[in-house]
């Protein structure tokens, strides 16, 4: 797709918007293997490469494992590196995800969320990126095409931030966001360049004078120190994210935070949900507010690192909270967002009731009526102080 206008509104799918953001970033290297529903990102981007619109070295590889391996090699050499994938592709990268973060390489990956097999399914849920939540990558989630586009730039800045130097993943909902056309505002190329700046790696694999060794063996006398170093970088990523989002808002007028709240201030019952389902939930919030019901929403944007103090602060006025998970931890105790939000709220006094509903797996629709039902159940728990069912599947 040829995109000429960079001012005003342009109709783009989530995938095209991410690919266009990559074109504007013009990374040194992109190693990727296409997979539904993120295929179009790589397809569009390879078009930009073929047309000479970027100077990126595009490495076409035989698998996602190889894609991430090539990304790591290039990043170790000091390159700015980007890639995109989904579902099984991310799963095949698993081993390498930990190596990218352990080696402190600020690779940026767009993950178009799709369910994991088996059974096979190509539609949206978050089991792919949730499975990678402990791999040491910064994770940003996006509700809309505009936000996915904007997040790509912010991810580059956060990942390469001198206090961070960790890889970052931008997540958007498969098909729902990746394939829906939305009118979005594009940023001018020059503004992009000014915002992201240039990247200078601390060490390079091509430095034959110093001859550094990457991927060295560490024994029990040093391994834990490197892990602590990595963990501290992840802790600092929150501050870096706040700084980058503020700068983004100042430059481009679109304000982002660690999470988004919607009519949460005086809410008694709240839903916590990631990505596109927040849009549906907001419609339900408005409908219930019209009936005088005090409901609101919190949508985490930065999930890794998990800003637990801030989330607890925003939810402290609520009496009941339902966390919606588009992934099941298969621990017989709910989904991953639930576990973390509930844990974040443990120190609140009074402590709100917290429930979990698993919804929308494998692309099952989540409708306004589903959100209304969840809210009504939460309002009941807020009133009685009792939770009838802690964890259950909805949208069945």
């Amino acid at each position, binding site marked *: 797709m040829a995109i000429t206008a960079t001012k005003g509104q342009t109709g783009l799918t989530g995938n095209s918007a991410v690919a266009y953001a990559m074109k504007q970033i013009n990374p040194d290297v992109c190693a990727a293997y296409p997979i539904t529903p993120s295929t179009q990102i790589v397809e569009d981007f390879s078009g930009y490469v073929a047309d000479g619109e970027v100077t990126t070295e595009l490495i076409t590889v035989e698998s996602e494992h190889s894609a991430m391996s090539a990304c790591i*090699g290039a990043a170790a050499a000091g390159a700015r590196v980007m890639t995109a994938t989904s579902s099984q592709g991310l799963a095949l990268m698993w081993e*390498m995800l930990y190596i990218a973060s352990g080696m402190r390489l600020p690779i940026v990956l767009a993950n178009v969320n799709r369910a994991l097999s088996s059974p096979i399914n190509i539609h949206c849920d978050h089991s792919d990126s949730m499975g990678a939540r402990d791999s040491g990558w910064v994770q940003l989630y996006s509700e809309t095409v505009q936000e996915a586009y904007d997040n790509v730039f912010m991810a580059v800045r956060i990942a390469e931030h001198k206090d961070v130097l960790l890889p970052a993943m931008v997540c958007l909902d498969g098909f729902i966001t990746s394939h829906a056309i939305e009118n979005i505002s594009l940023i001018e190329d020059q503004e992009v360049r000014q915002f992201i700046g240039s990247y200078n790696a601390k060490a390079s694999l091509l430095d034959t004078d110093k001859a550094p060794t*990457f991927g060295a063996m560490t024994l029990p006398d040093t391994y834990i120190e490197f892990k602590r170093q990595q963990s501290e970088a992840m802790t600092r990523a929150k501050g870096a994210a706040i700084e980058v989002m503020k700068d983004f808002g100042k430059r481009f007028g679109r304000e982002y935070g660690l999470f988004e709240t919607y009519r949460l201030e005086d809410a008694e019952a709240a839903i916590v949900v990631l990505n596109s389902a927040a849009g549906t939930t907001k419609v339900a919030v408005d409908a219930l507010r019209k009936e005088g019901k005090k409901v609101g929403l919190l949508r985490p944007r930065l999930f890794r690192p998990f800003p637990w103090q801030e989330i607890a602060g925003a939810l402290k006025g609520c009496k009941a909270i339902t966390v919606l998970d588009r992934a099941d931890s298969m621990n017989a105790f709910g989904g991953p967002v639930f576990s973390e939000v509930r844990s974040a709220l443990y120190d609140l006094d009074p402590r709100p009731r917290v429930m979990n509903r698993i919804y929308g797996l494998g692309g099952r629709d989540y409708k306004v009526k589903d959100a209304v039902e969840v809210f009504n159940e939460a309002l009941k728990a807020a009133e009685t102080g009792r939770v009838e069912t802690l964890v259950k599947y909805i949208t069945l």
Partner: protein
Amino acid sequence: MATLKDLSKQQELFSGGHRLCAGCGIPPIVRLVLRAANGPVVTTTATEYLEVGTTIYPYTAWRCPGYTRPSRTRPRP
């Protein structure tokens, strides 16, 4: 063709002090390969005992830059 005499005057890119077993057969091969390469060398090797034994932090036997990759990045037949 270079003689052993000539080669012995080149910089040794693989140092002693690594932790491979006494009499290990791999280092002589590596040393020869590194000598055969003309110009700047960067190595990349998939994890096995060669890498494990020669890159025990903070000691590396390699005098050229190198990257030890996970085993799965090794080409398969």
